[in-house]
């Protein structure tokens, strides 16, 4: 552990620490542009120069390039170093526009900060500034090359860190250009990080341009709820609406970056159609009136038909507060549920994962980065949990071998061996691929829960247990369908799924249904059965912040607060409970409340739309109980009432890990999935990064990236059926007929048709207990006009 002195203060740091990091530990900020802790040191910008006064290194040197060593005496304020840093800033400002007061990056700009801090205030150069042509880079990232200071952070992130190649450097000397070969939409689903990582305004957030200055925003630490990873974010809100989301550092979860779904998925919160008033039989009422009406009618049905006649459905996109309030609601009233599982199969796999994960074997994304071998089974990180793909890439960059067992065509930003197989072959493939982990020391098994069943999850957990038994630091990492799938599984006592309730509605046992933050149309595979069942109900109550078809059709609609207004606790797929604080007060955004005037010209003492309840508060109200008054009281209530949530008391910066504490139960005989019949192809609905998730699917800018709906098939199948890439085919099964473009992929499993969820496919397939097989003669090629 070398000991050195920086600005007359001593510090001891681990071997290999750069001087710039050692100084940070003392609270000394050495200027930097190219250096970024996630991307490392490359010594390009030269602004981190310091003077080495004594020790093994002599003179002015770059603090990002030099390892701290014993006996070093470093001065950051030495005149020679300070002069050089000022010169570097002057050189960078030679060609940088002088429009800080009106620049949209102003106030959010490292170059601006360091120019002011470095003391370069007056332009001496008489030369002209160079200019560039900007490029259109898609709906998310705005390009403004004139501001570029050539720190190379963008291409280092884009190409080296995240593994995409369509953004790069061209030209040399003073004409270095950062962009694409031809302008066009950036291919990386992590492109939004360019905005965070650029030290000035070359890449800016396109949808939020001109919505405000950094200092105008209420900036709040948040957690992303658009997949199960729970990445940290910073939410910027202004005038009662969210305008921007950025990545926030987390040691254990996402580190510095977030994916574009997480960054731009928030637009559902303020879309014009969002329910902000209560509805009773189609009539608009206040939210409180709707709550009271629902409470009264549910009580009446309970009195008339008994508590079994009321069913409660929740979903894993709700906060832990809402989930626990629903469990409590059913306990106190005797109502049926709550049901958190959309479908039995997906719930079973996620539940198996929650049971299998323990403090010993559950790995965080940080630990995946240091793995030396990764076996992913039934998991497609780019589409299910995007940031996981970046963590896997970091492991691969340091030499990890990656093997994927999956029927789908996988497009991952790193090299991997793809063992394409169908569901019924997965178990055997996994068993034989496990051999390949034998030489590793820190293997990780990643297991998906969306297209796999609980048997595969348990097999993966067994594999990890076996590896740990043979002295390896092995870990298990499961992806789950939704932000709070882990939390829902912790609290789920019934193990029932929505289909089970449908049975009871059809038999007349259940006469009233209250659905919390769930869109049954989106998740329930058999839509005609669903609408028939719902029509039989005496009362359908929907509590939601999305204007789902269910909300539109409900007898009573209760608007609820979003995570930005209510906050909440979400448990990610490794059992990490993380607290989200509200980013702004609830109520109608000022842009909408001003009746067209923005900013509004008239004011009232009340905030319009302020009376919307959080879903958990609504849940308490439905049984006539008063909800806890504050968030802190609610959290305390949860700890007191649910043993499994007791550890919430120890919430720290990185959250707190909650585990089910139940042993894995290995079934006596593994369920082997049904074999695909000959002359049939399996239709496999699959999640996708843009457009397939219910909340972010409302973001217009992300829908632009969703591409055209398509069906993917293996080359061998396409050749046999006489279908070519880009053909249109019609698929007929059960009572459904869909027409899709064909994409041919190699490798992917033969005998499988993969259809990614897409906002333009009205029919939204969700995985169901039973697999869908389509006869080959039901796949018809459509002649193009």
């Amino acid at each position, binding site marked *: 552990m070398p000991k050195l002195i920086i600005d007359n203060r001593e510090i001891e740091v681990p071997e290999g620490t750069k001087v710039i990091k050692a100084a940070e530990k003392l609270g000394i900020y050495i200027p930097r542009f190219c250096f970024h802790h996630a991307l490392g040191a490359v*010594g*390009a*910008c*030269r*602004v981190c*120069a310091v003077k080495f006064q004594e020790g093994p290194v002599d003179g*002015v040197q*770059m603090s990002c*390039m030099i390892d701290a060593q014993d006996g070093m005496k470093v001065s950051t304020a030495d005149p020679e170093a300070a*002069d*050089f840093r000022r*010169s*570097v800033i002057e*050189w*960078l400002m*030679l*060609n940088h526009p002088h429009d800080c007061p009106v620049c949209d990056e102003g106030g959010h700009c490292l170059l601006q900060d360091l120019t002011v801090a470095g003391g370069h205030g007056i332009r*001496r*150069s*008489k*030369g*002209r500034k*160079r200019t560039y042509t900007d490029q259109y880079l898609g709906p998310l990232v705005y390009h403004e090359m004139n501001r570029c*200071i*050539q720190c*190379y952070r963008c291409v280092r992130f884009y190409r080296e860190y995240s593994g995409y190649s369509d953004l790069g*450097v061209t*030209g*040399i*000397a*003073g*004409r*270095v250009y950062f962009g694409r070969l031809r302008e066009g939409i950036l291919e990386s689903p992590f492109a939004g990080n360019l905005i965070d990582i650029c030290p000035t305004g070359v890449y800016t957030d396109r949808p939020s341009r001109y919505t405000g200055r950094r200092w105008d925003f209420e900036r709040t630490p948040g957690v992303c709820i658009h997949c199960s990873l729970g990445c940290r974010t910073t939410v910027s809100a202004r005038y009662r609406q969210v305008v921007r989301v950025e990545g926030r550092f987390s040691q254990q979860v996402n580190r510095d970056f977030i994916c574009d779904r997480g960054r731009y998925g928030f637009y559902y919160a303020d879309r014009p159609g969002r329910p902000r008033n209560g509805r009773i039989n189609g009539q608009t009422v206040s939210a409180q009136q709707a709550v009271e009406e629902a409470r009264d009618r549910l009580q009446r049905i309970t009195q008339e038909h008994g508590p079994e006649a009321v069913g409660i459905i929740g979903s894993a996109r709700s906060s832990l507060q809402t989930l626990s309030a629903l469990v409590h609601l059913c306990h106190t009233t005797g109502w049926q549920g709550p049901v958190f599982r959309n479908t039995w199969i997906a719930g079973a796999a996620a539940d198996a994962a929650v049971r299998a994960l323990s403090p010993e074997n559950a790995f965080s994304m940080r630990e995946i980065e240091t793995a030396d071998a990764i076996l992913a089974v039934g998991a497609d990180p780019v589409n299910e949990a995007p940031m996981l793909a970046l963590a896997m890439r970091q492991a691969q960059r340091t030499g990890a071998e990656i093997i994927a067992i999956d029927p789908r065509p996988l497009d991952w930003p790193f090299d991997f061996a793809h063992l394409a197989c169908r569901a019924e072959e997965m178990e055997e493939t996994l068993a034989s691929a496990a051999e390949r982990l034998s030489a590793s020391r820190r293997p990780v098994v990643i297991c998906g829960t969306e297209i796999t069943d609980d048997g595969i999850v348990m097999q993966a957990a067994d594999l990890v247990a076996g590896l740990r038994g043979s002295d390896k630091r092995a870990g298990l990492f499961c992806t789950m369908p939704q932000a709070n799938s882990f939390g829902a599984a912790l609290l789920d006592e019934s193990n029932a799924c929505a289909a089970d309730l449908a049975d009871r509605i059809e038999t007349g046992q259940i006469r009233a249904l209250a659905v919390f933050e769930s869109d049954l149309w989106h998740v329930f595979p058999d839509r005609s059965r669903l609408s028939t069942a719902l029509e039989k109900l005496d009362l359908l109550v929907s509590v939601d912040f999305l204007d789902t078809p269910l909300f539109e059709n409900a007898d009573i609609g209760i608007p609820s607060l979003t995570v930005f207004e209510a906050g909440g606790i979400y448990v990610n797929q490794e059992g990490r409970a993380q607290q989200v604080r509200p980013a702004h007060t609830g109520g109608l955004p000022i842009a909408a409340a001003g009746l067209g005037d923005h900013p509004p010209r008239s004011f009232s003492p009340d905030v319009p739309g302020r009376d919307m309840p959080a879903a958990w508060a609504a849940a308490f109200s439905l049984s006539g109980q008063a909800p806890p008054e504050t968030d802190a009281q609610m959290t305390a209530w949860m700890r007191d009432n649910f043993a499994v949530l007791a550890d919430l008391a120890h919430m720290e910066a990185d959250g707190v890990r909650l585990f089910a504490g139940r042993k894995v139960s290995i079934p006596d005989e593994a369920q082997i999935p049904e074999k695909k019949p000959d002359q049939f192809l399996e239709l496999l609905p699959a999640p996708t990064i843009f457009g397939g998730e219910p909340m972010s699917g409302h973001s217009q800018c992300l829908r632009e990236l969703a591409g055209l709906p398509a069906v993917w098939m293996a080359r061998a199948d396409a050749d046999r059926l006489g279908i070519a890439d880009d053909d249109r085919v019609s698929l007929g099964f059960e009572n459904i007929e869909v027409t899709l473009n064909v994409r041919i992929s190699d490798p992917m499993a033969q005998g499988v048709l993969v259809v990614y969820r897409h906002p333009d496919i009205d029919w939204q397939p969700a995985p169901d207990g039973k697999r869908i097989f389509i006869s080959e003669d039901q796949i018809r090629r459509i002649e193009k006009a």
Partner: protein
Amino acid sequence: METRVLLKNRKPDRILDLDEYRASGGYTAAEEMLQTGRPADVQEVLEAAGLLGRGGAAFPMGVKLSTVAEDAPFPRYLVCNADEMEPGTFKDRVLIHTSPHLLIEGMLLAAFSVRAEHGIIFIRPEYENAARILEREAALAREHGLLGKNIFSSGFNFDIVVHRSGGRYICGEGTALLNALEGKRPNPRKPPPYPTVRGLWQLPTVVQNVETLCFVPHVVQNGAEWFRNLATGPDEAGTKIFSVSGRVRRPGCYELPMGTALSEIIETHAGGMAGDGRFKACLPGGASTGYMPESMYHQEMGYKGLSDAGFRLGTAAVMVFDHSACLVGATVNLLAFFARESCGWCTPCREGLPYMHDLLRRIENGQGRAEFVPMLREMAGQMGLAYCAFAPGAAAPVESLITYFEDELREHIETRRCPFETRGPIAGATK
């Protein structure tokens, strides 16, 4: 006195073919060494001879070879740097056109000394003729068993490919060259690790200049002492090919003992100053070295001698200026070149050089101000903190201009015009 070692077979109209080369003793050194010698023998004799890298950096070749560890991984690479982009330098081209097999034999011996099996000649694209000659002669050597598998029945395998550069100055920098060969941007790499430890594709790689490699057969054959005695004094070793250009009567390549005086190079070999010109200054080693003023007219031109005097011999490309030349204008020209050729990686080089060029251009055009001189002096010094040696090299002419010719600079500023008036104003930004 001209001492021809490398250029002894130089013919006015053609290259030396393989038979002629073998008849003059070619490939005997390689044959003997491969059959009876050890790799360490080559390293030892080169180290004892004090053969310094002729590409400009003057690093001892024997020392460089010995940094390839005995247990270093395979395959190992030998790269011949024939990029020769330093302005004023044209010795490598002459060497290749004189005796390509001397280079091939030199590469063979150097490769043997580190057991490298792959040889790459990285050549600038303007040297297409030379590249074709090398490809043809390497094929011939392969036919005769001088390259390929089991050379001279020694069990040693070695072959050569010729790679044409993309054509930028920075590609000739030893580590940028490796990136260029890998298909990446030619940004220099920051050692450590040095290329001999992790070079091309992270494998041990020795990069040597054409002229250095051409010496290897001679040193191996004739010994270290012979080589040291070629120089004018005990501090220097061998001969050096001087590429003389500028205001002299007979510009050209002259192979002379290391340490030959500048005055002798100009007067005896280059035929004296052209026309009625008087010696004013010269760049001793290409565009990235400082101006030697008149007071150094009798300076001995060797690596040690020049370094002691505060200069660099570089590639020994002597560019001579006479009394009618405006050195401010000449430096503007040099800076335009360097500002254009920067790889664009680090700030001082990418932004500082065009800034210096702009200031100096204004001075030359009569728009200079007194404060430009200290600005130029400060920035030229700060170029030393750039990422690689490119920017300090580019700043060397500026630093020496301010040191030795400040009066000329001041005259431009005070009279608001160029006192030499050899041409009109120099056009603006060179981007």
